[in-house]
């Protein structure tokens, strides 16, 4: 079958100008619009998740005092502004759930997967544009459903974002039935959306690359998103299956996780973490990839060791499947298995180390332009290192006995997910904002936002290590119950104040984001003097992206190449010595 004639064309190309508002901005099949839709949706959820974090922090810092404006909450959540323990448990659960599933994951995979993959590969759109649209709207519905859980009787799910059975399996133990069921349904529906997105990304990357865009000419951001899509594709169904089983336990009386009738409690943990550990990498790999792009651009140098960066990504993805047990060292799991998981966990730290050193190598002898995305990227490296190193403490099983389920873990996960992923998201949003909206974000506000965030972020999360070392358990409503935690109250208050400040300075980012949309400086095609294909088209790019099929002559990181005068050399620029790839074959 001839390959040129095949493919369901996004027929809209031809008639782009005749589309109604609804088809163009709401039910759009354009990957760029869908990416922006994901961006706006995830920012709203990021705000929700952040507000929940603030309530949690208030409770931990000032257990006796009513929450400011807490009177606005209904009696069932916070009578007189004081949070109820059951509502606190819901908050802890939903903060995790929302941030992981509806903020960070769609921000990294949904937004940048959609926006960047076709543009950076030189494709007119995704392989399956309508599936792509469906993916967004299904994810959106899952989000609405998830938020609706707060308003059902009994409150929202309160068994933690990990929903350990049997706490989550039987309403008797938490007092929550409807909320937990909504949680499970929403997760299963979101899983469907994620799988649809992932199969779109994989197919697009494999099949729709422009001529000359060989595997090892793909930017690391695309490599990372591709590897991530594979992880999503294979990990999410495990969670969906487990969620469905738990849902049946809740609703039709099955016994999968009911130990009294042949079920197994620990099976949930195995299934959850078999999904959950690849998920951790889903939440960081795209960040790593995009940061690699931005650091090369900022340093005006090729990425140090491009190939080893790619292999590090791939080996992280592989090893990510055999380390899930390190979440379960203290769960009563077979101790021999614990040993195995410890070794595999130690090994998976190596590719992460390689990446960090390669980022440093990229900056070395560069000519570093500290634009806002670069600041955030360097911040990412600096913070990710802390998250990575603190992971080694947990990987060591005996040390984990002590720090498991303490604030040390909380500090670790936030260094990876906030210090890591979220800084990378700030970097990436600022970096590709001009492409998305045709205008630059204000760089002064951006710099102030970065420094304040960096400062308050560290003031918030670094002391959490110390709480953990003192033995402070996670997910407890009122630490003053324990004598050994009472001396930590001042530290808890300090963290709370820092967290409130951290939350407040995000207003700068939001304001910058919104204001720049209307008032920002007009961006040209290539404001950062970068090499990628997306910078060869107008900002924002037209429907269909490329008027003419681009041809790629080189890798994405030819900065300061001796071949040309300027310090960047675009992938599509044809030099005298370049051969046309059509002749050379794919």
């Amino acid at each position: 079958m001839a390959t040129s004639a095949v493919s369901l064309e996004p027929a809209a190309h031809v008639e782009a100008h005749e589309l109604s508002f609804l088809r163009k901005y709401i039910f759009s099949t354009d990957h760029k619009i869908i990416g922006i839709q994901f961006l706006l949706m995830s920012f709203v959820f990021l705000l929700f998740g952040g507000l929940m974090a603030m309530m949690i922090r208030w409770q931990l810092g000032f257990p006796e005092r009513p929450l400011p404006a807490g009177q606005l909450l209904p009696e069932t959540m916070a009578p007189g502004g004081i949070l109820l323990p059951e509502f606190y448990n819901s908050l802890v659960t939903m903060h995790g759930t929302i941030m992981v599933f509806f903020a960070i994951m769609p921000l990294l995979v949904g937004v940048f997967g959609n926006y960047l993959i076709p543009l950076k590969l030189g494709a007119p759109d995704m392989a399956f544009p309508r599936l792509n649209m469906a993916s967004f709207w299904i994810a959106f519905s899952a989000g609405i459903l998830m938020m609706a859980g707060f308003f059902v009787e009994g409150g929202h799910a309160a068994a933690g974002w990990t929903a350990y059975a049997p706490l989550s399996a039987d309403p008797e133990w938490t007092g929550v039935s409807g909320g937990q069921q909504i949680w499970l349904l929403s997760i299963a529906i979101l899983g469907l959306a994620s799988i649809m997105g992932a199969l779109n990304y994989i197919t697009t990357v494999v099949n729709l690359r422009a001529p000359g865009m060989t595997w090892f000419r793909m930017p690391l951001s695309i490599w990372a998103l591709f590897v991530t899509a594979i992880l999503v594709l294979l990990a999410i169904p495990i969670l969906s299956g487990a969620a469905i089983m738990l849902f049946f336990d809740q609703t039709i009386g099955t016994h999968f996780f009911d130990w009294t009738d042949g079920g197994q409690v620990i099976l949930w943990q195995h299934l959850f973490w078999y999904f959950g550990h690849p998920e951790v990498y889903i939440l960081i790999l795209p960040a790593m990839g995009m940061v690699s792009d931005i650091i090369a651009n900022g340093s005006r140098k090729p990425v140090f060791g491009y190939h080893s960066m790619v292999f590090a990504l791939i080996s992280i993805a592989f090893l990510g499947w055999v380390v899930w047990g390190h979440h379960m060292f203290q769960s009563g799991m077979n101790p021999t298995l614990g040993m195995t998981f410890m070794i595999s966990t130690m090994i998976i730290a190596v590719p992460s180390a390689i990446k960090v050193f390669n980022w440093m190598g990229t900056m070395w002898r560069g000519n570093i332009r500290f634009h806002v995305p670069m600041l955030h990227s360097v911040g990412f490296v600096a913070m990710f290192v802390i998250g990575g190193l603190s992971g080694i403490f947990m990987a060591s099983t005996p040390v984990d006995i002590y720090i498991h389920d303490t604030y040390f873990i909380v500090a670790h996960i936030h260094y990876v997910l906030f210090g890591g992923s979220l800084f990378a998201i700030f970097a990436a949003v600022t970096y590709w904002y001009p492409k998305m909206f045709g205008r630059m974000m204000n760089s002064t506000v951006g710099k102030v936002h970065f420094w304040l965030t960096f400062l308050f972020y560290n003031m918030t999360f670094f002391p959490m290590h110390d709480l953990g070392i003192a033995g402070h358990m996670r997910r407890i409503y009122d630490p003053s119950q324990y004598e050994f935690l009472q001396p930590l109250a001042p530290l808890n208050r300090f963290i709370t104040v820092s967290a409130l400040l951290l939350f407040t300075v995000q207003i700068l980012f939001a304001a910058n984001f919104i204001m720049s949309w209307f008032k920002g400086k007009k961006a040209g095609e290539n404001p950062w003097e970068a090499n990628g294909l997306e910078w060869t088209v107008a900002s924002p790019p037209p429907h269909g992206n490329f008027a003419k099929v681009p041809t790629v002559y080189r890798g994405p990181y030819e900065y300061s190449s001796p071949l040309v005068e300027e310090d960047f050399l675009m992938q599509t620029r044809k030099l005298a010595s370049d051969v046309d790839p059509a002749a050379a074959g794919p």
Partner: protein
Amino acid sequence: MSWILPPGASTFAGDIDFLYYVILVITGIAFVVVEVGLLVFAIKYRARPGRKAQYIEGSIKAEIIWTAVPAVTLVIIGLMSGGVWNHIKGRNSIPPNAIPYEVHVKQFEWNFTYRGPDGQLGTSDDFIVRNQLHIPVNRPVELQLIAEDVIHSFFVPAFRVKQDAVPGMDIRVWFEATKVGEYEIACAELCGLGHYRMRARVFVHSAEDYQQWLSDRAAAADEE
């Protein structure tokens, strides 16, 4: 702020704390190297007009070094940890002379079952003390954790002991206290509404005091 572990009071504390400090030193070095490196590079190689970055694509030698060094270090940490892990949680790690207890855990209390005067668990003269664990010093004890509803986790910070109690699983944890005194037991796994106040105490007695306490309690239990 402090990176020093609180004082330990069991035989595990020495091993675990040692490992912790080893890792702290190693990661501390890595931390300083990376952060200082980033800072130095950021200052030294900041953009200056008229300069071009050096076109360097990478170095196999450098890649090998920074693959091998972390790999070797981590495997060494892993091997060091393995021995300690087996000593604490291995399948056959429980010393034969450990005093057995049964702990029935439920929302939100710990019920410690003691051997009665006959020295056997599971007989009619066993007695239960709610939220109080009394043990002798310098003698291993073995707790069988029996969760009756959801997962809880037995955590004594001072002893560096933590073990989930999972319903339907046979779970045993052991330790040996080294200092007489009173310590707090916490639940470390979210177990519902009252998780935050699922607190108990462990009393470590000298051998004589422990015998005394045991016979007092047994007598009291007898009278009931």
